[in-house]
């Protein structure tokens, strides 16, 4: 059922214009002189814009592309300028007969597809945002804008509507909701980030003709796209698995005491060192742990140790220092107890081959220390291994979370509602 309303004359230059959108078109620009005018009778004013009509949009009017299985055609484009901060972005009106209209907005080379939704998405509110379908959408910006340039056809008076509406945008990258409201209307739209190269593919436009992406788009998903919560959950699972493995290893370890003796300073009367009695390791490579306990009290103890393989003569040397100090500090009329250090130390040596061993001990005593005791355990599971494993597992998640938080902070740098300030 074709009507006769598909041809209209430009009120400024009288050029005859065929309406691509037929009766849907409510405002358009003249292909000849660029003036913007309405097809209805409510406003006969003609608009000229700050940006000259010679400006060529990245997506030409009439370009077609398939989105979600439907062919959309670019009907019009506007450049909008925010009133407070004066930044500009481009909005393309695209149309499919079965799906209605939608927008492609582009700012700093980042693209979003935006389409009207039938109902208010706010399922529940929180300060500065709302939940929709379990997803948290946080207020990113509120603004008012004006049209600085228009070209093509529009299904509404884009100039008047832009000037008369207030806008709010709530983000949960890559999605967002936009509310456009005035005294007469309230329109919710949903949006989703689209990669620049996807736009080029969809509309068969050379990629280099599209503006280059700058920084992180406000709805751009973080690259890598690990969710922090899934990363933390994975880390917890791996740590628990590490503990389980450690428990199994511990259960299967002999953890056997093979030497224990108290030494006093009298044992060192004529010599600088003392040797433990020999002990045997067999059954394959295994660890030993040497525990030293020294009853130091505001004093210190230091010793060099040499674990000697009597079969091969190989030595494993290490040192240990034990010191323990404590007392009271008096400040501001009060006293504060303090202490530092402790009375024990331990050494762990892993993967010792089979053989007969003893330990040579070269102690140096403080002023009040009179003795110490040594205990040697074989086939001891290492608690340090667990610690290093956990540290190793945590490195990537920690670095990623720091990086992701830093990127998120950058995303909100242009917002008046940043949760990072």
């Amino acid at each position: 059922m074709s009507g006769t309303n598909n041809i209209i004359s430009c009120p400024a230059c009288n050029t005859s214009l065929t309406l691509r959108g037929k009766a849907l078109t409510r405002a358009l620009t003249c292909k000849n002189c660029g003036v913007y005018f309405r097809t209805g009778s409510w406003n006969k004013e003609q608009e000229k814009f700050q940006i000259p009509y010679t400006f060529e949009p990245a997506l030409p009017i009439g370009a077609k592309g398939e989105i979600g299985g439907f062919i959309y055609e670019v009907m019009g484009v506007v450049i909008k300028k925010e009133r407070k901060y004066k930044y500009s972005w481009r909005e393309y009106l695209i149309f499919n007969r079965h799906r209605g209209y939608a927008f492609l907005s582009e700012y700093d080379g980042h693209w979003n597809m935006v389409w009207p939704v039938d109902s208010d998405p706010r399922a529940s509110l929180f300060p500065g945002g709302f939940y929709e379908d379990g997803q948290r959408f946080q207020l990113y910006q509120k603004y008012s804008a004006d049209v600085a340039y228009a070209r093509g056809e529009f299904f509404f008076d884009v100039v008047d509507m832009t000037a008369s509406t207030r806008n709010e945008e709530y983000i949960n990258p890559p999605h967002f909701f936009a509310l456009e409201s005035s005294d007469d209307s309230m329109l919710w739209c949903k949006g989703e980030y689209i990669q620049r190269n996807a736009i080029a593919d969809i509309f068969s436009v050379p990629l280099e003709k599209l503006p280059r992406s700058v920084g992180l788009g406000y709805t751009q998903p973080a690259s890598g796209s690990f969710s922090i919560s899934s990363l933390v959950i994975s880390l917890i699972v791996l740590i628990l698995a590490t503990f389980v493995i450690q428990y199994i290893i511990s259960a299967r370890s002999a953890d056997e005491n093979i030497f224990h003796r108290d030494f006093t300073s009298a044992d060192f009367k004529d010599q600088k060192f003392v040797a433990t009695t020999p002990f045997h390791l067999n059954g394959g490579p295994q660890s030993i742990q040497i525990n030293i306990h020294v009853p130091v009290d505001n004093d210190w103890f230091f010793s060099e140790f040499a674990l000697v393989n009597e079969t091969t003569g190989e030595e494993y040397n290490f040192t240990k220092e034990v010191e323990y100090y404590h007392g009271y500090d008096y400040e501001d009329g009060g006293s504060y107890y303090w202490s530092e250090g402790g009375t024990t130390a331990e050494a762990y040596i892993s993967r010792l081959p089979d053989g007969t061993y003893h330990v040579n001990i070269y102690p140096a005593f403080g002023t009040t220390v009179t003795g110490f005791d040594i205990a040697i355990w074989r086939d001891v599971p290492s608690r340090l291994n667990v610690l290093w494993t956990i540290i190793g597992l945590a490195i990537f998640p920690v670095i990623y979370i720091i990086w992701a938080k830093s990127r998120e902070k950058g995303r909100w740098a242009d917002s008046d509602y940043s949760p990072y300030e």
Partner: protein
Amino acid sequence: MSLHTRITCPGCQAQHTLRLRLTGRFICPYCRAQAVVDGIAQDASRPLITAAPMPDDLSFVQIGTTGVLDGAPFEVIGRIRLQLRNDYKNFWCAVRKEGSGFWMVESFGSFAVYNGAWQPYTDLASKLRSNQTIPLPDGPVTGQYVERCEGLALLGELLPWSIVEPGWFVVQGSKGARTAFFMTKPNVGGIHYLLGKKVPVENLKLANTLPWNEWN
């Protein structure tokens, strides 16, 4: 006017058979003359009115489109197109086999169905605003927009519809899938509304729609 009543076009004298149990108007497809039926009898005393031509707005629904609503098949037999300032509404009049009718309303690919008759709105007109709660007997809706109707075109057999001249205001309100359409003309006849529900177009199983190869 009962089911399958025949009427004579007041313009070209063509004979037409009505299919609705309660017809409000009939616009002759040949000469666009309006027969006002008002559910009782053809009112031949009214002056001959010719409806404005129906604009082509790229809708893929047409007279003769069929579909299924809540399990009952229907056929589109009439259309009222409202040209709003920044939108449009196609009220497609659909008839079920037993003669009951409903409005299937379409705008930019969004569909809603209004089953019942026009009801009087008795609360304050000042509540008919965008982003305001509009009280209705079976639960409130939230105002979405207020728009002036700038043009109106009619075609085929239609359910009762009171205002056929432009210049009145429409108010759309919704809550979830529930939606209400208000019609108000200042100082004329009060405010009436239709209550309906939004429907995904896939659920209507539309057939015999206009093929659209023009842009593909």
